[in-house]
């Protein structure tokens, strides 16, 4: 098992004819991902790396039975592409681009919720179930199959942790980039039930950071419903207030809301293991597993 993405996932790449889209389609295919179709308006009928291209998501679904999409289009077009996939009722839609306007995501978020579509990103590396499939741009060579389910607001902190885990022989069930923006399509809270119910996942890692209250919401759920061990890293304890730290969502308000202290306190009270750095996450996991 794994969650969201596996060998049976039939993937659409939106923006497949673009530079990034083509490059990462090749990467995904080489990893064994089942990329069944691509979508670029106006390029329908072509093929890219043997993958048929369609003008619309709906046609791609009808012709190739796709059930997930990864959106490799620039930030300014992400809303239109994501909305097309959401309106077509694709069960899983993953957006990659950085700097997507937050108002665009607000509309995508609420539309996806109403239609029961699971939306991920933006500003996300995607989703990988090591050894099975990947939908995104993560450097897959550092991942290996195993018992750790991971979700992260940061790509670099996730890679760093995965690299050390793999080096120590600890693999991963599924790793999800929830993204670093203010309105992510899915938040930690949405994914906890999946990991809790996944028999392959033996421990859960949450890599959060300052800003917002998603870590606190996750803590409340963990306390009541999660029986698996949860290891947490919150980045940004020493970031200045009122300043975005690069991720649009990583900002502590002037009044202190969104601070790392609040988040760590809530998660600790929920019984999570709190790590002070990526290496510490790996140390904790190696004692638990």
């Amino acid at each position, binding site marked *: 098992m794994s969650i969201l993405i596996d060998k049976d996932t039939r993937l659409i790449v939106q923006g497949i004819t673009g530079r990034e889209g083509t490059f990462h389609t090749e990467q995904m295919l080489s990893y064994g991902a089942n990329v069944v179709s691509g979508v670029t308006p106006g390029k329908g009928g072509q093929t890219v790396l043997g993958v048929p291209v369609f003008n619309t998501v709906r046609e791609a679904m009808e012709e190739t039975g796709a059930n997930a999409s990864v959106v490799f289009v620039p*930030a*300014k077009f992400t809303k239109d592409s994501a909305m097309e996939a959401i309106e077509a009722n694709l069960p899983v839609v993953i957006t990659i681009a*950085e*700097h*997507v*306007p*937050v*108002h665009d995501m*607000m*509309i995508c*978020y*609420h*539309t996806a919720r*109403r239609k029961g579509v699971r939306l991920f990103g933006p500003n996300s590396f995607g989703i990988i179930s090591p050894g099975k499939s990947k939908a995104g741009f*993560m*450097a*897959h*060579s*550092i991942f290996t199959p195993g018992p750790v389910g991971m979700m*992260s*607001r*940061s*790509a*670099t*902190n*996730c*890679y*760093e942790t995965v*690299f050390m885990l793999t080096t120590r022989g600890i693999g991963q069930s599924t790793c999800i980039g929830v993204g*670093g923006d*203010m*309105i992510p399509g899915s938040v930690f809270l949405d994914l906890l039930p999946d990991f809790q119910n996944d028999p392959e996942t033996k421990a859960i890692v949450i*890599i959060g*950071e*300052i*800003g*917002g*209250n998603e870590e606190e919401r996750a803590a409340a759920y963990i306390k009541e419903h999660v029986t698996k061990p949860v290891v947490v*890293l919150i*980045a*940004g*304890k*020493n*970031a*200045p207030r009122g*300043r975005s*730290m*690069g*991720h*649009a*969502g*990583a900002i502590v308000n002037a009044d202190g809301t969104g601070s790392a202290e609040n988040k760590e306190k809530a998660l600790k009270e929920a019984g999570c293991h709190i790590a*002070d*750095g*990526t*290496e510490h996450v790996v140390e904790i996991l190696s004692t638990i597993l």
Partner: protein
Amino acid sequence: MKLLEYQAKAVFDAYGIPTMKGIVLDNQEDVAAKIAAAGLNYPVVLKAQVQIGGRGKAGGIQFAEDGKQAQEIVDRLLFSDLKGFRVKELLCVEKCSLTTEWYLSILLDRGAKCPLIMFSPQGGMDIEEVAQNSPQSILKLPVDPLLGITADTVRYLCSKSGIGLAFEKKLGDVLTKLYTAFLEYSCLLLEINPLCVAEEGGLIALDGKVDIDDSALFRLPDVTAWRGAQQEDPLIKEARTFDFLYIPVGEEGDAAVMSNGSGMLMSCIDLMAKAGIATTAALDLGGGATAVRIREAVRIVLSNPRVKTLFICIFGGITRCDEVAEGVRMALSESRDEKQVVIRMEGTNKQKGLEIVEATRGALHVGGIVEGVRVLAEGRVQR
């Protein structure tokens, strides 16, 4: 991006939200003539265009009864320093005869992921105290972004706040326009404070705050043009020209951090702080770490005179370590100061990168973040 007051006023004007008639003064010549030419009636208010709290109490807002007084105020206030900020522009508006000050804003609520209307009949200078002491007097109303503002939204605000349904049409008019501006300008915050009830009963936006999502600036050319007037650290502006994000972190310390991702940047700062090293600046490279870009990034960070040591932490599957190392070598060879760089890098061509670092004076390679922090704490970079 947070707009200055006169820029916020321009947004209100563009949407037909009533404001006081006014002009922007950016030099001291012929003040009375300019006020007359703009058709402003005295008394006027001269307001320093700086983004500081307590602007009025700091002397940044002054009243003039005639042209002579206005000239005197401009001579004194324009180009002066207010709480460390240079006053480069003054907004000159007619003084408003008002009866009451309200508060009205729309902000993007991260928790609920939707716009949130905030309204209070007790607006003005002390809104933060009101929020602290009687939070119940500030109404908060979430908006379903797929439905927008509905008729009952305004009726609720008028009724619940106690201002009464007599204001339903006027408040509704302002709120509808404000909401349209909120969407079209991709705002994180759009605030009118105070929203004045003038003596003749009309509503006037007397001051405002606008915070616009930086990611939406590509579709807002008029806002982008305002960027030059913003008061920012010059290093932030310089870094932006290369698509880097430069972050002033603190006044203490002489260390800086650079990474290809925001998360790792924060992790490094945290681990350094734990080891007693204060970070003064950080730079997010984003993607595409070519030698030339790395050189510019290192140069920008080291040009901050506070920075003595730079910790570069780069981890990405497709990052080329030789490019990173070459960029550092170029920047250090062009720097006249004795500054030090500690590099942690993981990626392709690592061996080639290590050889370049080895041959670069002032640079040291470390195997991981924890080792890097240890080296910085022990101060054993210099070779």
